[in-house]
């Protein structure tokens, strides 16, 4: 699967994941081919990214471990400044872990 921005979608592409409205109501099931009206629907709904069947034509180069470490360090640095004064609070440190995972996943996309 590859994930494309809504504006890069084309007619005939095959959905690799279901599309939900507001994360709840199923609009289109995966396997459907994109039609003109579906495309307009997707842009109206403001859905940012859509999963499409097929391999990425130019997949992003896999990050080398060193690169990943750098990204982790940067996020860690940012979060430790932000959480410096609340680091002793158990809830806040748990949240910090959760933000770390989230920010890393965003960076790796």
């Amino acid at each position: 699967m590859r994930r494309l921005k809504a504006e890069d979608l084309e007619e005939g592409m095959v959905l690799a994941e279901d599309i939900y409205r507001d994360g709840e109501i199923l609009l289109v099931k995966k396997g459907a081919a994109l039609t003109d009206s579906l495309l307009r629907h997707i842009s109206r709904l403001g859905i940012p990214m859509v999963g499409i069947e097929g391999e990425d034509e130019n997949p992003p180069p896999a990050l080398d471990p060193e690169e990943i470490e750098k990204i982790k360090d940067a996020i860690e640095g940012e979060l430790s400044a932000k959480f410096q004064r609340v680091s002793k609070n158990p809830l806040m440190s748990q949240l910090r872990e959760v933000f770390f995972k989230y920010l890393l996943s965003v960076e790796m996309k």
Partner: protein
Amino acid sequence: MTREEIKKKVYDISDLPTLPDVLIRTNKLLEDPDTLLADLTKVIEEDQSITSKILRIVNSAFYGFSGKIKTISQAVIILGFNTVRNIMVSLSIIGTFPKDGDLELFDPMKFWQHSVGCGTIAKFLGEKVGIDQPDEAFVAGLLHDLGKNIFAQFFKEDFFEALKMAYEKNILLFEAEEEVLGSNHALVGQYLGKRWRLPANLVDTIRFHHDPSHSKIDQDLTSIVHIADVICRGMGAGTGGDNSIPMIEEASWKRFDLKVELIEQWLPELGEKVEMANNLFSM
């Protein structure tokens, strides 16, 4: 300066940002029990620019009635007066936020993103935990740091000192404001909210978003915004002029029975929603 001096100054500022006429007229109509739907829609529809913006928003995924609502009266019938009014307030607030500023450390774009982010997260959390009016939480989130705009526009030098102090000592802007100005953005936002005659629970949220357990009017709304502010900072959506994260009050967290695992599960969707809202409510 003392709190009282700042309060007086805020009440005396003659060129405070104002809310648009159409909103003031709508609010008046909504206060009158005899108002008819037709009166209300007429007032709104006279303002074409806000009408088209409202329709764009109600038909977006943000409200989930895609492409079905064609007129303001349909919007009011389907979504209710309150939701339409909340959308109008949100759109009106955009206009009162400064678009540029020369204050280093306080970027109006990033501050707007912090506000939109906080509103979006508050609405989302409100829906998940089932508070009364989740779309009111959106407005409350947009407004929560309103006082910073007043500081940035009318107390520039002192505010700059506070910003610098917040970054240098890595403390909350809220605390730095107290040290430098002897007041804080929650109080100043409350003064402006009152001058604007915002609903009491919104003013309450602005006032107590840093200490929601002191809220007397709407603890649900205040607590939701308090938590949303923390999540917004953690996600790095915009910035509010400091680089520190406030502690979530235990009572707020327990109030809704929230779990860290739930937040973890929601974050990817929240990220998408925040992006969507930023496109929808861009300056």
